[in-house]
């Protein structure tokens, strides 16, 4: 089973939930956890895995053999990203704009374009106390987050349970992380920002046809913004409410796991997991 932990809004507690859930479950079953927030991967700060492997994620960018090039300009015509241009007897390639589609190399009439690897990030694999750990990390200044997320998801072991820590938002990186998962836990907070962005995330999951449940973080005991009414109307179960608690905030600040600092949270998370599994049972 593959479960993504996502949220429209950043900073709602995705990483807290994903790390503590995986940590609690690992004693029961075979679990792996994937950090797909490749812009800002934070899961390792809480789980401290030992990394054993590292792979570079590359895209293919053009390299022009000017001895064969007749400067016809076809490559520049077909490139939709403005990543290659011909000025007089020069071909200029802008690697940071290239999406690696391969069109220029395929369609060059002179076969003057080769493709070379350009690193855009890396995927690291490791483990911590029986918990398998995979993370993607985009290189600073790069933009191909979905490619790196897909490389991380290649590491999914279909025989066990996989928990994915997804990036925030609802655009291509979030979609890349949540595509093909069995269930998605949406973490939100009871503020207008949290609710607004939760609605966007639900819209995304509607399009991806992924079943979902909600976890409310920093719960204050009163719903001032209509979060519960929204969930009821959309028939989304509220799986858990995590109260606003300075001890939880402090554990997070120091990179400590909630279930280690406040062990009473472990059974609550395991119960949440039961509810998710039960909800998926046919």
């Amino acid at each position: 089973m593959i479960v993504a932990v996502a949220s429209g809004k950043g900073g709602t507690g995705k990483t807290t939930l994903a790390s503590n859930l995986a940590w609690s479950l690992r004693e029961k079953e075979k679990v792996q956890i994937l950090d797909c927030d490749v812009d800002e991967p934070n899961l390792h700060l809480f789980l401290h895995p030992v990394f054993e492997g590292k792979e570079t994620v590359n895209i293919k960018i053009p390299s022009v053999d000017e001895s064969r090039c007749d400067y016809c300009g076809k490559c520049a015509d077909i490139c939709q990203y403005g990543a290659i241009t011909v000025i007089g007897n020069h071909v200029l390639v802008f690697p940071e704009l290239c999406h690696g589609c391969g069109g220029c190399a395929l369609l060059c009439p002179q076969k003057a374009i080769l493709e070379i690897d350009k690193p855009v990030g890396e995927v690291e694999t490791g483990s911590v106390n029986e918990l398998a750990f995979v993370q993607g990390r985009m290189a600073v200044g790069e933009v191909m987050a979905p490619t790196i997320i897909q490389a991380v998801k290649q590491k999914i072991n279909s025989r066990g349970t996989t928990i994915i820590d997804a990036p925030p938002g609802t655009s291509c990186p979030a979609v890349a992380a949540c595509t093909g998962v069995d269930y998605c836990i949406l973490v939100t907070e009871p503020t207008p920002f949290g609710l607004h962005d939760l609605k966007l995330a639900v819209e995304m999951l509607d399009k991806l046809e992924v079943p979902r449940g909600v976890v409310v973080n920093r719960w204050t005991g009163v719903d001032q913004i209509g979060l519960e009414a929204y969930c009821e109307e959309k028939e989304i179960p509220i799986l858990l409410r995590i109260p606003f608690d300075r001890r939880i905030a402090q554990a997070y600040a120091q990179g400590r796991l909630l279930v280690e600092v406040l062990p009473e949270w472990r059974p609550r998370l395991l119960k949440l997991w039961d509810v998710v599994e039960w909800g998926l049972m046919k």
Partner: protein
Amino acid sequence: MATPIIEIMGRCRMGAYEMKELVIISGKGGTGKTSIVGSFAALAEDAILADCDVDASDLHLLLQPVIKDRHDFLGMKKALIAQALCTQCGICESNCRFDAIQGFRVDPFSCEGCGVCYHLCPQQAIQMVDNVCGQWFSAVTPYGPLIYARLGIGEENSGKLVAEVKKQTKELAQSLSKELIIIDGPPGIGCPVIATIAGVDLVLVITEPTVAGLHDLVRVLQLANHFQVPAAVCINKWDLDEEKSEEIEAYCREQKVEVIGRIPFDRRMTEAIIQGIPPVKYGSGGAMEAIQRVWQKVQNHLQA
């Protein structure tokens, strides 16, 4: 003749007119960026406001804008296979680097609009069709004009839409002769962030005293440095973990990046958001006073 001289003087003034762009980003989400931008908007007397978090824009929830006009935003075209012409040869599928074609249909979520399939199809069964991938809005708020946008769910081109928001904001600022643009930025360090910070006068990074806050701050400062944009740091909720705050300050000293603000944890920040009011308009003292001091320093930085 007098008229041309006045015209020339007018032009000279135009030339001397200097517009500043301030961007507020955070790397990590949830550090309080939008609450602080909303407060700056209320404190700035004569600024144009923009929200470049086109994926999950929230600033409008604080500023209560009235939309003046809305515009469709066209992203990259997407491939579409005409089933009547398709002979199911599979050339498109095997050459698509984005795995966007399966069963002779294009998955619009995965299609990056490169057009390789369109060029290669022997039957010319593939068209590239326009794709409205979002909207941008021009709006009026009590604190000044606001340009913001909404990217369609699951769409690409967030960077392009950000560039459009910035372009529209700049044009508006020029036409109104406004001297300051305040921009709320997106989380992360990817394409929308790069498009947001490109060419601005100051990037203010809002961080928080947590391990994740520091980790993400490091990457955001690397990004600002990579694109040679001046940066300063503000620590929000700094008293939640004073040791971590000190660690952040030490890192900034080492990087020669100035920490221009320390905002204490204040529950009224959340209360203000729940009421839909910029925090500085909601109360005084505590975090609100700290935000006003940060605003003073930001202005000094911009004038330097």
